[in-house]
């Protein structure tokens, strides 16, 4: 039976992990390589690296770091941030990334997903959508959640999947950072609309939120989070143990 995936997300700027990271026993807490190794050994099923660099030099540094990470750990790696063209896909895939996540790039260039899926396969293309309720309607936001595109989210996600996106990361802006649990209503709407894996993001504050997610929505494939893992509030092994005790299939290491 396929297991539910637990995915830590790392924001990287100019080759360093940002957002306070609070691990005991890690000499360099902002080194993407040490953190990737830590998470891989802690039982993460996959890692997401998100490049929030603004400059070209920073982007080149990110690429170097990615190669180093891919040399060190042997679990699937997804890379997002600043992916606007197939050349960007090529750049990160050559460093050992397995999947590439697109967000604003797909909004600006509607042909990007189809073009990339044709070149690298559907399994390689992830649509990451930042979604927020506006007057009761799910709307897609761009530019890191700052700009309302006006597009209805479920139709947009369906269109992306139709064009070849093989996986959906749904980040609810409404629940993100609140630590009150995942956005089950929004996630249900998306899992009912598409037949590709859906990764829940935004809102996890404790282990119970993951149990609640997979119990309420068996069609969700994975849970993604950042700060609760970085700050050690939730340890991946404890989380997986609890999920297993609740009858949810996980990979225990």
């Amino acid at each position, binding site marked *: 039976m*396929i*297991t539910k995936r637990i995915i830590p997300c790392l924001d990287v700027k100019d080759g360093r992990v940002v957002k306070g990271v609070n691990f005991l026993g890690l000499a360099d807490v902002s080194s993407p390589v040490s953190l990737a190794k830590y998470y891989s050994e802690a039982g993460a*099923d996959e890692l997401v690296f998100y490049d929030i660099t603004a400059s070209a030099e920073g982007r080149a540094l990110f690429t170097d770091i990615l190669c180093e990470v891919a*040399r060190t750990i*042997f*679990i699937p790696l997804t890379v997002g941030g600043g992916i606007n063209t197939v050349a960007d896909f090529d750049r990160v*895939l050559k460093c*050992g990334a397995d999947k590439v996540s697109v967000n604003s790039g797909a909004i600006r260039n509607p042909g990007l997903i189809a073009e990339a899926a044709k070149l690298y396969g559907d399994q390689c293309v992830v649509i990451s959508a930042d979604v927020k309720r506006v007057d009761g309607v799910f709307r897609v936001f761009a530019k890191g959640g700052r700009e309302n595109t006006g597009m209805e989210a479920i139709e947009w996600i369906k269109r992306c999947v139709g064009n070849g996106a093989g996986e959906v990361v749904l980040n609810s802006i409404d629940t993100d950072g609140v630590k009150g649990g995942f956005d089950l209503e929004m996630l249900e709407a998306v899992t009912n609309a598409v037949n590709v894996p859906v990764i829940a993001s935004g809102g996890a504050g404790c282990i119970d939120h993951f149990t609640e997610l997979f119990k309420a929505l068996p069609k969700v494939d994975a849970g993604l989070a950042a700060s609760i893992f970085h700050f050690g509030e939730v340890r991946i092994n404890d989380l997986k143990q609890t999920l297993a005790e609740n009858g949810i299939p996980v*990979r225990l290491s």
Partner: protein
Amino acid sequence: MVAIIDYGVGNLFSLKSSFAAIGVEAVVTSDGDVISAAERIILPGVGAFGDAAEKLRESGLDRVVKAEAAKGKPLMGICLGMQLLFERGFEYGEHEGLGLIKGEIRPIADVIPKNLKIPHIGWNALRFRGEASPIFKYINEGDHVYFVHSFYGANCAESVIADAEYGEYLTAAVAKDNVFGCQFHPEKSGDVGLRILKAFCEI
């Protein structure tokens, strides 16, 4: 030394790094002489069966692989590389494979329940079949490995050494004498995957 065959499909960076991690020298090569000189061969691959089979034939590497396998050299196909070991593949038409493993490659959509997603992607547990395989000597039944595929090995019961349940039991690994194939990605399956590669390097 392990020769990882480069015939223009897929990214071989992680595979090469995996061998480095277990302390085994590996080269990525499309040179028939290098492949012949290697102690072991890895046939990787992602993409579509027909396309990859054609590239392998065009480069003449299909003959090299078959000749080396016939000499008894350990050969491992990974993902699409495993599928190419079979006699035939039915992905966008019918295509001929290397014929080193009896059976054919069919869409998983033919056998799994309609409500399951395709591709079969993620970590799944191995169920061992038949006699204990030497490539599994450092792992246990039930260990999880990472899959990404929409087609599977069919009509190959005599060669199946492991399968994984996804609505149906799908072929996860095959073996015949010195020829091995993994549908999953050992190079993306954490420690379990590295231990499979290590065992292969000791055959």
